[in-house]
Structure formats: structure tokens, C-alpha cells
């Protein structure tokens, strides 16, 4: 039973998602304003949150990383959740394929907005039990779970004929695409909670995660009500050669293009000469 079990749910999300954006990525907890819950029975307490490292640096040897989230929930909480979510919600164009005679081809296209680039949710208990206990409205308000993300997304069919199952197929397909490259994840029962309420979990950061700032949110739940909230953030930055090449490719593309051609041409010729010197033709 959820209400008798101690569990924790952690969420990483956009700033402004459940409170003001943080001025800097910090490893210390962020005080949130104290609220009275709808039932009046609980007061929402601050969960001091630590997010480490504050910056995930993408260098030449980067192959994805990990963000450790830890905090202190009220000891009597039933469950804890943490979420990481990107600050950006870049618009996307998605295609739906369909069979036309023998072949699979794009039959319609959609313009999708208001879906986070990254969304990972960790819990200390089964997510279905947590969602059942807090109810769909609270889940949607705090964007807990994929169904809540779907409440906020905006979709426009840009080509092809609409069909009844479009939204289901599109949403599930998008989640599957994001999951495959490690940007969307549900990590059930991934949070360890000690008897005193101290909790922690690690979020794997995929190498496909783009540069930017990410918000981390934590919720403590008791008897179907959110009794504690915490917020933190971290950043993903490109550094060194990776940063220089990215900047050159986007801001000095002419020079970058010439460098690319010259390096390639010179390498080809030099190797050809080396081989000739080694007894070739």
C-alpha cells in the first residue's frame, strides 16, 4: 500500500515549472515558499535539494554523465519523486508513416510544441500508485508523468488527412523516439529513502542531451497530497575543442568550411606521398 509505504518521487524540470527559476546552478537546496495544501491538513515544506555536479561539461571524451540528486523529505512522507526537465521546449516536426500499396512512406506531418527536450522522472514507489493517490489534476499541474506532458502539448497537423488515432500514435511514438536516445525516462523505485527522510538518486545524462540549463524538482507525498517541494538546477556546457568547433561551425562557417576541405585534401595528398615513399607505384 502506497500510504503505508515510504516512497519518494524525484522530478527534473523547467524553471518556472513549480516555482521561480534559479539564478545559478547550485548544489544547495532552494527555499520555496510555504503553502497550505488544498485539504488544509498539510503545509508544503521546503525540501533542501543538492544537485551534483552543478555543470556537466561536454569535452572531447564526453560520453554522457550522471546527475546525483539528494535531499531531505519529511520523515512521514509516503513517497518521493524527482524530475529533471529541460528549460527549452523546441518545436518539432514529426512525420507519421503509413503503408501505401507495398511501401511505407510519410502520410502526414505534425508540428509539435510545448514538449520538453528532456524529461526524466524518478520515484521511490510505483508511479501508477503515486498518480492514483494524487489524482490527475495534481499530476497535470505539476507535470508528473508522461500523461501530464500530453495535457500541455500543442499539435498541429500540417499535411495529410487527420485520423482518430493520430494523437495516441504520435505521442507514444514521440516518447519512444526520445526514450531510445535517453532523453525521456521513467525510473520507478529508483530513489532510496532513509527512515529520517533523506533521499537520493542518480539520473543518467545521455550524450544526446543538448547544451542548456535543466531544472530539478523534488516532491514528497503523503496521503495523496504533496507535502514537500524542492528545486535545483544544473547546466550542460560544451568546453574546449568541442566548444570551439561548434562555435566555428555556426558563427564562422565559411572559414570552418575552408579548414575542413584543406585538412581533408592535405591529409589525402600526404598519405599518398607517404605510400609512394614506402615503395608504392
Amino acid at each position, binding site marked *: 500500500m502506497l500510504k503505508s509505504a515510504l516512497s519518494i518521487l524525484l522530478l527534473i524540470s523547467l524553471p518556472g515549472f513549480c516555482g521561480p527559476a534559479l539564478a545559478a546552478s547550485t548544489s544547495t537546496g532552494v527555499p520555496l515558499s510555504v503553502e497550505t495544501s488544498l485539504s488544509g491538513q498539510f503545509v508544503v515544506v521546503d525540501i533542501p535539494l543538492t544537485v551534483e555536479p552543478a555543470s556537466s561539461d561536454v569535452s572531447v571524451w564526453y560520453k554522457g554523465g550522471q546527475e546525483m540528486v539528494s535531499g531531505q523529505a519529511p520523515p512521514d512522507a509516503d513517497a518521493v519523486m524527482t524530475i529533471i526537465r529541460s528549460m527549452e521546449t523546441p518545436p518539432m516536426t514529426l512525420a507519421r508513416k503509413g503503408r501505401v500499396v507495398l511501401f511505407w512512406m*510519410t502520410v502526414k506531418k505534425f508540428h509539435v510544441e510545448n514538449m520538453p527536450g528532456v524529461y526524466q522522472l524518478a520515484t521511490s514507489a510505483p508511479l501508477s500508485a503515486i498518480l492514483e493517490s494524487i489524482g490527475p489534476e495534481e499530476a497535470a499541474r505539476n507535470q508528473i508523468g508522461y500523461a501530464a506532458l500530453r495535457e500541455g502539448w500543442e499539435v498541429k497537423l500540417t499535411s495529410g488527412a487527420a485520423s482518430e488515432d493520430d494523437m495516441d500514435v504520435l505521442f507514444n511514438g514521440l516518447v519512444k523516439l526520445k526514450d531510445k536516445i535517453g532523453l525521456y525516462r521513467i525510473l520507478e523505485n529508483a530513489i532510496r529513502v532513509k527512515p529520517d527522510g533523506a533521499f537520493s538518486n542518480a539520473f543518467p545524462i545521455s*550524450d544526446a542531451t543538448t547544451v542548456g540549463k535543466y531544472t530539478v524538482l523534488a516532491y514528497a507525498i503523503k496521503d495523496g497530497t504533496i507535502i514537500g517541494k524542492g528545486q535545483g538546477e544544473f547546466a550542460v556546457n560544451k568546453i574546449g575543442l568541442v566548444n570551439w568547433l561548434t562555435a566555428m561551425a555556426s558563427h564562422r562557417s565559411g572559414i570552418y568550411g575552408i579548414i575542413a576541405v584543406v585538412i581533408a585534401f592535405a591529409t589525402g595528398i600526404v598519405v599518398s606521398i607517404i605510400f609512394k615513399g614506402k615503395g608504392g607505384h
Partner: protein
Amino acid sequence: MDIFLPIAGKSINVFLVVGIGGIVGFLSGLFGVGGGFLLTPLLMMIGIPPAVAAASDSNQIVASASSAAATHYRMGHVDMKMGIIILIGGLSGGTLGVQVVKILREMGNFDFFIKAVYVVILGVIGGLMFMESLRSLRRSATAGPVEAQAPGSRRFSDWFQALPLQMEFKNLGMRTSAIFPFVAGMIVGILAAIMGVGGGFIMVPTMIYIIGMPTVMAVGTDLFQIVITSANVTFQQAMRNHTVDLMLAVILFCGSVFGAQLGARVSKKLRGEQIRILLAVIVLIVMVKLLFDLIRTPENVIDFVRASGGH
């Protein structure tokens, strides 16, 4: 050992990429093709975004093709005059082709169109070349060694004699009209732009079967013009789409330049029909794979729509 590719935005195993580069470079040196028709799908298979795969592929082709072309040049396999005429045709065709691509994109379902064109062209070229080289191999097996050079069609060459702008191609030991190589280059340029590759796998059979060039001369001359066209495409991709991943290209050509050297040397040891039948088999394998992709039920019917790549 993994390395992060800044433009592809992905971490990748260095040895895997060097290996892929080596195999494609070998084929490039052996057959005189850029290898784009093989490399781009291979890169996409290991998770490189299609637009970045196509653009970085062009960059690595500059390296492998110049390595192989320089070797072929020393071996006397490059006819500069023929190469330049084809090149001018190819560049004009490419410019025209980009406009065709724009129109097709606006009409929608461009990806399907590209793949369908690929399947038809690869099927026709691969099939014809396979049958022809098989006949040549059988003939040489029964009648002993025969000339290992071009099977160039008499009908075509007779017809070219009637065209104006006749030129002497000394390295090739032939005299033909400049109009034809120019037009052939232009048609390949248009197709190459539509299909997003260099077009060597179309150009080499065209040089052999239609212009009537010896196989090894077609390989060397095509490599020469590929160096110039792929350098142009790399620059355009860097300027317009910012999709050239220099890090990816450098790792690829660490493998491909050596593969290309090996390929150019092996090509010298093989007879023309042996090279042609190998190329035909590879072209047919790629065709079957593409056809299978069009028919197979996809794992996920939803996909991100690619940023405009192609060239």
C-alpha cells in the same frame, strides 16, 4: 575509446568509425567511387543524424578521393581533359539538381522519392553491369586472357563521331566529341544532387559503357573529378547547413585514406571485368537493402522530420 562529435552531438567509438572509414576508403580506391552511397547509410545506422552524416561524408570523400586520385595520377590513370569536361558538366548539373530538389521538397514525400530513385537506378546499373561483367568473365575463362579494358559500345562511339566539338584524349587514346562527356557529367550531376551523393557509382559505369573508357582510366578520372565536387559540396554544406562535423570526418579519413591506398593498388592487380562484377554486387546489395527498408514495417511509425540535408 569513445569521442564526442560536436556537430552530430553524439559520443561514438573511435575504432568503429575508423573501421567504417577504412572499408569505404578501400572500395573508393578500388572502384573510383566516392563511397557516399555506402557511407551515409552506415553512419546513419550508428546513430549519426542524416544531415550530419551526408555533409561529413562529403568532407571525408575529399580526403580519401584525393589520396586515391594522386596515386592513380602517378600510375597514369587520370585523363585530365576528360575529367575537367565531365567536372564542368557535373557542376552545372549539380546546380540544376539543387533546384529540382527544392521543387520536389515542396511537393512532399521527398525521402520516399529519393529512396525510390535510388532503388531503380542502383537496380538498373547493378543488374546491367553484373550481367555484362559475368559474360566477360566467362568469355575470358573459355577463351583465355582477353583485353581487360572497356567493353565500350560501338554503337555509342560511332554516334559520337558525328557530333561536333571533336577532341583528342591522348591518355585515353581516343577521339570523341566533348559534348557527350559534358552531358553525361550534367545528367549524373542532377541525379547526384537529387540523391544526395557524389554519383561516382553512376559516373564510372557511364564512362565505361557509354563513353567507352578503359575501366582503370574511368576509375582514376572519376576520382579526380570527385575531389573537386566533394570539396565544393563540403564547403556549401558548412556554409548553408552547418552540418559538417570535422571531428567525425577526421576520424573517418584516418581509416579511409589508408583504405583508399590499398584499394588503388588492388585495382591495378584485378582485371576490368573483375572490378566491375565486384562493384555490381555491392551496388545490388545496397539496392536490396534500400528496397527492404521501403517494404519492411517500421519499428516506430513516428519519426523526426530531417533538417534539409542533401546536396
